[in-house]
């Protein structure tokens, strides 16, 4: 009888044991701990790997000395104003799950006693994580989530370096406007009636439904007709009914906000259904991933995507080339939108810490609110980093900007992204109209 009571006790005792076995954080001198929460497994694991590599590279550069890199953080070993303290990244995996993200944030703050947090890619996860940070008064810098709502919540401990979707969507309409005015390199002015009809298909969760609304609002503002606007499930097995619905609206321009697998499926279905709009534009994410290009190969020539970084930036920005070379040595891939922004996010952390000269949250808050990083420090083609401290949006970087790239066949026969917007940095003639598959 007793023994089975013991069995029960063991079962319940697991709880207690696991609590006891938790490693207690060892106090180490001269280390600044940054908790990094990314989707390392789950559906977005590929993006998570890129993000992790980007942040790790930035930490390596900050902790070591690389004289040939024209970056402030490469000159010193560690954080100078903190006596050369090294950056230590603690990675956590949120699997794209907002609830798990909030738990991890609590754990990082209370158990690992991190000085700050970086993350989290999915806007929905960033939302819960930043709420936890706000409650505990721990600074958080976000480099990759683009839902406009995130910085409109009046949070005092949340800063975002990346421009958000309103920016990017506006870029698109600027490009369309530019097309009608003949500003686009290699394309003669197009009469507006030729590209006036739009149709959009966005995935139906937080991010996509926001983008869908933005497109609706901006179309009105710029005088375009949105003939069809639909939301679809990103996990759908088949998108042919969606594509036929888009086709039936006879749009000149098709706009998408898609994650990776649905972006691939969408383009395949467009091709199978012989849909031939004049412009296809994707809102980053799926349209920018290496898999998108690898899977679809030559079919995507002519497709536009917004992004913040593409390999061609290297040609207009020397510093980006050097960092890209380091990144390629580390991972074998070129920097992409995700990794470049993760890099910039951590870089911003280094600058903020350097300026604060302390790891007290209040000092970091003050430093972040007054920081100004010039554009020449950054790999991304922005004017710099400076956070808004008043008005409707708190903590949003006001100097960021987006790019619109177009997939084109390079001289080596490989398909890659060329810059077509902003007009003054465009790297190639734009292909217009969309040439078909």
């Amino acid at each position, binding site marked *: 009888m007793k023994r089975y009571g013991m069995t029960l006790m063991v079962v319940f005792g697991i709880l207690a044991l696991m609590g006891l076995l938790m490693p207690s954080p060892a106090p180490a001198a001269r280390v600044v701990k940054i908790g990094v929460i990314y989707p390392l497994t789950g559906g977005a694991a590929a993006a998570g790997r890129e993000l992790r590599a980007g942040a790790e590279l930035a930490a390596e550069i900050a902790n070591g000395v690389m004289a040939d890199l024209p970056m402030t953080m490469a000159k010193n070993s560690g954080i100078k104003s903190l006596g050369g303290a090294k950056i230590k990244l603690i990675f956590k995996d949120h699997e794209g799950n907002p609830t798990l993200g909030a738990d991890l944030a609590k754990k990082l703050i209370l158990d690992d006693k991190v000085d700050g947090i970086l993350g989290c890619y999915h806007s929905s996860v960033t939302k*819960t994580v930043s709420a936890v940070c706000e409650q505990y008064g721990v600074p958080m810098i976000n480099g990759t989530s683009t839902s406009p709502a995130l910085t409109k919540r009046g949070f005092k401990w949340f800063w975002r370096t990346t421009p958000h979707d309103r920016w990017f969507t506006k870029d698109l309409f600027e490009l369309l406007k530019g097309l009608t005015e003949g500003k686009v390199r290699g394309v003669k002015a197009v009469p507006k009636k030729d590209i006036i009809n739009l149709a959009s298909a966005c995935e139906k969760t*937080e991010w996509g439904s926001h983008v869908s609304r933005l497109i609706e609002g901006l179309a009105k503002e710029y005088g375009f007709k949105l003939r069809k606007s639909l939301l679809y499930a990103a996990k759908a097995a088949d998108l042919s009914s969606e594509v036929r619905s888009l086709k039936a609206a006879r749009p000149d321009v098709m706009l998408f906000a898609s994650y990776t697998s649905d972006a691939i499926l969408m383009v395949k279905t467009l091709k199978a259904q012989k849909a031939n709009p004049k412009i296809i534009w994707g809102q980053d994410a799926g349209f920018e991933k290496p898999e998108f290009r690898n899977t679809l190969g030559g079919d995507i020539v002519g497709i536009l995507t917004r992004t913040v970084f593409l390999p061609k930036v290297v040609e207009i920005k020397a510093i980006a080339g050097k960092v890209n070379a380091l990144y390629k040595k580390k991972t074998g891939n070129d920097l992409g939108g995700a990794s470049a922004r993760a890099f910039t996010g951590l870089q911003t952390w280094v600058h903020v810490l350097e300026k604060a000269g302390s790891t007290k949250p209040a000092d970091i808050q003050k430093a972040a609110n007054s920081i100004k990083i010039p554009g020449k420090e950054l790999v991304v083609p922005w004017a710099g980093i400076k956070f808004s401290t008043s008005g409707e949006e708190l903590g949003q970087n006001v100097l960021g900007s987006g790019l619109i790239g177009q997939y084109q066949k390079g001289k080596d026969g490989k398909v890659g992204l060329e810059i077509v917007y902003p007009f003054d940095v465009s790297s190639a003639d734009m292909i217009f109209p969309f040439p078909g598959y």
Partner: protein
Amino acid sequence: MEVLRNALDFSDFPRVDLCVAALVASFLLIFPLFHFSSFAMATMIQFLMFSLYGMGWNTIGGYGGQVDLGKAQYVGIGAYTTSVMLIRWDVPFWVSMPVGMSFAVLWSFIIGYPLFRLKGHYFAIATIATSLVLKDLFEVWDFVGAARGLEISPIKYHPPDFLRLIFKEDVYYYYVILGFFFLGIFYVNWFRKSRLGFQLRSIKDNEDVARSLGINVHWAKVKTYAIATAFVSLVGSFHACYIKNIEPEDTMSLDISILIALMAMLGGAGSLWGPIIGAGVLIPLKSYLKEWLGAKAGLVGIDLIIYAVIIMLISAVEPRGIWGIVEKARRRRSV
């Protein structure tokens, strides 16, 4: 009085069980004094929440033998009612929670009535279907934030706020859910000895016999389904205040439904302690496996593989779950 005495009367359990239960209960009561990590605290809250979900599931799924894989819809109804009422009209938790429960129970009657015409696998899959339908509706319903969900702003309230259940430290949440946990145990203890409880078990054993004894089988099932729903909705309301962010994709996903059923089935469906044991094993296992193995480069998914193997082993070795193993051993000893 009779009800209360029945609820507090555990005398039909062996003394060993009661000793262990008392030990565990006192451990749960003083757990926060140990000051384990916040991760352990979050895991414990999860454990208590899922125990309650499991207890609710157990009434219909365990005692009644109707495998329900659609509990997430009631988590959603509870969580959404509380969030919407708090955000829009500043209604405190203690008011919105019963309101949410009533909505959930109402909905359970609406779908439960036709649902219980089905049996076995048909029933199980139909519950999944209803849950997914409701989730799809919430994803386009603008009043409740559509797919973007709802967030209870952490800066608008002043913790600790006992009326709205907004706290900064987890320990407050811990004791609130622990209170519900004990109430839940007492309730189920009463339930299993109630008229309905006995009716249900006879239905599980043989429906035709139960019917011939004059039991209104359909009505008994629908009633129990509503009871299970009330449990789940209550924890859903708590979930809204604890997590402070709800989205259809997250709160009403199929994973939650399946996890709820999994806990109870693994622990031992149809026994009082089963769902608690199930949650007590699976939740820490999942959390800590992920903690130790999850972030290891090159071994993505290894934690879930181990987790899956344990589920498979238990289901193959002892179909009645962990509690089944305990009981079997006990029986063998007494022979």
